[in-house]
């Protein structure tokens, strides 16, 4: 189990190898990579700035991860979230869930993302090509997605 908040990019293959490499009891690995879109609805986005609440962010991510391990038989997991200024096409979030069988890995990865999006204290600010900025509003669909795990 591990969570990380960092500005630097991550390498999905390297992270997966570091987490699982050499283990023979893991039969299923689901990795999810979230990336920055170049447009939000019709609006062009030049860059995103990710603000967070240091310490609470890691604590909340760890609580979410612990909950996933309580619900599914996971053998390993990793959550990485980037902060600072990011651009369209950049990686923003990585979730890895590893289990003996695929269903637990699929479900745990979806759960981890749904909870990350609705509970981990990160905030996105978009900068438009004009230089104008706007805080991103929370989406009701994300709350709905998280509610299905209750």
């Amino acid at each position, binding site marked *: 189990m591990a969570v990380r908040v960092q500005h630097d990019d991550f390498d999905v293959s390297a992270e997966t190898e570091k987490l699982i490499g050499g283990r023979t009891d893991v039969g299923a690995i689901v990795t999810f990579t979230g990336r920055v879109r170049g447009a939000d609805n019709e609006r062009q986005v030049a860059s995103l700035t990710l603000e*967070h609440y240091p310490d609470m962010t890691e604590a909340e991510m760890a609580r979410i991860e612990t909950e996933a391990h309580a619900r599914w038989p996971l053998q390993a997991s990793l959550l990485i979230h980037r902060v600072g200024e990011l651009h369209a096409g950049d990686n923003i979030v990585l979730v890895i869930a590893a289990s003996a069988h695929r269903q637990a890995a699929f479900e745990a990865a979806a759960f981890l993302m749904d909870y990350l*999006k*609705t509970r981990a*204290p*990160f905030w996105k600010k978009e900068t438009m090509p004009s230089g104008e900025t706007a*805080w991103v509003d929370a989406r009701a669909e*994300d709350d709905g997605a998280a509610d299905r795990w209750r």
Partner: protein
Amino acid sequence: MDNRTRNVRLLYFAWLREKVGLASEEVELPAGIATVAELVDWLEQRGPQYGEAFARREVVRAALDKVHVKPSAALGEAREIAFFPPVTGG
């Protein structure tokens, strides 16, 4: 509730930070403020920037010592109280 005043650290994030004009501050909590909602009532009277920040109070979220809480939550012995908009990571 007891009558002691005590110091707490308040943190503001995202557009709350911008509206309040501060990322954090130490305040002396007056006696009698027992819940997050009561703290917000008190903050709103400290200046127009607070009134502006908490104008859409139903969307403002709070955490006590880095744990999400509801507005009705008791402040208890919390040292750090954070206010922020709904989260938008991922």
